[in-house]
């Protein structure tokens, strides 16, 4: 095999595959290795039989499983539930790299928010907003003024700021100015800005402002909800970017454990030894599982429960796909509970079945009990797979040892923090910020 590369990438999770693809397009010679025999690592979508093998000590027989749940190969179950924001960074990266050639996307039918033990659709347009029972008539007017302020805000036109300074005023002060009540704050902060807790209230308003703007622009793009989801599951995303990398010369080796990591006398990364031989490169990018000693816990653990239903989620108008947000304050918690629901319409479950993935950041020593408010919303549950994941992040920036590590996938409901990590690693590795090139232009010259 080839000996020298510009970059070695370990792990085929989404973060690693995007970086591999971007660096290959930049002309870097990339070797991409995974110790497992499939793409995606934690961001893979797995068949039902794999799910049983991963989570259950005594898996049922394949015959019994298929009688109950249909063909194994019709299932593509995400291990980590997330959606794409239609106007978010991942969408932009997909479009600019043309990875959209390999993956089809559909809208998610709706976003719902939990309020006083019921769920309500988050309005996706003005008509829905007017008829929504979420707010009283006067609160709706205040909310409208708030959204108009966001829509009209121009950085260089101080008149549009209405006396607010996004970098000085806290978000709570902004809410106060518009006279918004606690339940509306909950709605804006958790169902629109998609914060998982209330720490943002005392922070400067800008990040929240930007998140609300992203939400509104994403809803405006396709109409039903701000979210998109790939047919056949999120596991298509790392595969698509791996293909991009391969097309630009990246070498792929699955099922190839790293036997030894080589460092030079100064402790800088030098290469890896695998069953295929020694591969050298001045830089390695990897997920935390390849360098556990160089990672630390974030002190956050996420519990995720994958539930199989044989009916749509009650009170959602039989939606084929949706998100439910249970804001923390509604159930006396510090962190929100998320439910992501998908079905055969996105080719992740067999016909007639629904997948509901419930997740939250653990706060007690009985994490499964913490998910109860979500389970109650789902109706009868046919099968349940629960797992707890500790979240890791790198101890160092990688500038010393040239080992650049990604973060674990967090508890958020979308990919924005993941793309922040991609951009951050890209900057540290290359020394310049990521500028997306349009691949179509590059190809046009070749074809």
């Amino acid at each position: 095999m080839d000996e020298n590369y510009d970059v070695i990438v370990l792990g085929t999770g989404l973060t690693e595959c995007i970086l591999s693809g971007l660096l290959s397009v930049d002309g870097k010679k990339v070797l991409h290795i995974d110790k497992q025999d499939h793409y995606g690592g934690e961001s893979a979508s797995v068949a039902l039989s794999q799910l049983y093998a991963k989570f259950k000590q005594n898996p049922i027989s394949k015959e019994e499983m298929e009688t109950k749940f249909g063909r194994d190969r019709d299932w593509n179950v995400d291990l980590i539930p997330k959606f794409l924001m239609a106007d978010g960074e991942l969408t932009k990266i997909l479009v600019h790299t043309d990875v959209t050639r390999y993956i089809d996307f559909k809208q998610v039918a709706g976003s719902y928010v939990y309020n006083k033990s019921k769920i309500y659709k988050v309005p996706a347009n003005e008509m829905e907003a007017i008829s929504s029972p979420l707010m009283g008539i006067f609160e709706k007017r205040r909310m409208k003024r708030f959204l108009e302020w966001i829509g009209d805000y121009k950085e260089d036109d101080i008149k549009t700021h209405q006396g607010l300074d996004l970098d000085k005023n806290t978000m709570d002060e902004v809410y106060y100015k518009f006279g918004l009540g606690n339940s509306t704050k909950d709605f804006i902060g958790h169902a629109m800005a998609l914060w998982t807790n209330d720490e943002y209230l005392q922070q400067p308003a800008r990040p929240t402002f930007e998140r609300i703007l992203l939400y509104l622009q994403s809803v405006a793009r396709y109409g039903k909800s701000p979210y998109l989801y790939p047919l056949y599951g999120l596991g298509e995303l790392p595969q698509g970017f791996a293909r991009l990398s391969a097309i630009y010369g990246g070498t792929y080796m699955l099922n190839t454990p790293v036997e030894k990591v080589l460092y030079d006398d100064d402790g800088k990364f030098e290469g890896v030894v695998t069953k295929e031989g020694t591969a050298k490169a001045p830089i390695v990018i990897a997920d935390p599982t390849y360098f556990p000693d160089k990672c630390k816990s974030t002190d956050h653990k996420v519990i995720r429960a994958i539930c199989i239903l044989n009916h749509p989620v009650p009170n959602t108008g039989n939606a084929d796909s949706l998100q439910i947000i249970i804001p923390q304050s509604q159930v006396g918690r510090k962190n929100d509970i998320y439910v992501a629901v998908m079905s055969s319409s996105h080719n992740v479950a067999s016909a007639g079945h629904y997948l509901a993935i419930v997740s939250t950041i653990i706060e007690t020593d009985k994490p499964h009990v913490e998910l109860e408010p979500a389970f109650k919303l789902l109706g009868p549950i046919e099968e349940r797979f629960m797992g707890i994941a500790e979240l890791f992040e790198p101890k160092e920036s990688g500038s010393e040892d040239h080992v650049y590590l990604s973060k674990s996938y967090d508890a958020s409901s979308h990919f924005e923090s993941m793309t922040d990590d991609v951009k951050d690693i890209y900057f540290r590795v290359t020394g310049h910020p990521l500028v997306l090139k349009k691949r179509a232009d590059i190809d046009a010259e070749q074809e």
Partner: protein
Amino acid sequence: MNTSVTSIKLVLLGEAAVGKSSIVLRFVSNDFSENKEPTIGAAFLTQRVNMGDHTIKFEIWDTAGQERFASLAPMYYRNAQAALVVYDITKPQSFIKARHWVKELHEQASKGIVIALVGNKLDLIEGGAERKVAREEAEKLATEEGLLFFETSAKTGDNVNEVFLGIGQKIPLKKPDEQSQGSSGLRINDDNRVDLAAGGPGSSNAGACNC
């Protein structure tokens, strides 16, 4: 868009250096390059073939080298309606590998996939090299597994177009109003699908030419 155009996803399989990309290059551009580097850069070529009253648009997926260390993604087979399994008639090892790919396709690909077994490099035999894979042996495999079978030369162009015409004739064509069923893996015309690049509500990705 003309409704008589059917888009077909066709995937290439076969050992390294058997001439997968060369066959496609001959078919798409009627060209051949003697010392072609392993595939880099182009890996999504399209070519239209007129089949009498309708047109088939082949969307051809190259392995992009991911087969080298057994690292092809399931995405590669996903919804493929046709496959070329290529071997080199002077290299018995490449025929063994071809058997493996046929098995893999039966396991991983859609049920109705049309597979063509292609023995390439006929020109080498004509140039005096020794044939190492008997025509009869390959025909036997094709009959057993229900494959189309061709021997080709990407270099001279011999029999290359016939491969794609043969596949075109065997692909079950659906009437436009049946395309939304999608059960055989034909691209679905579905308004819920979004075209990320185009944006805007209701824009459909199905059948869009983005190449």
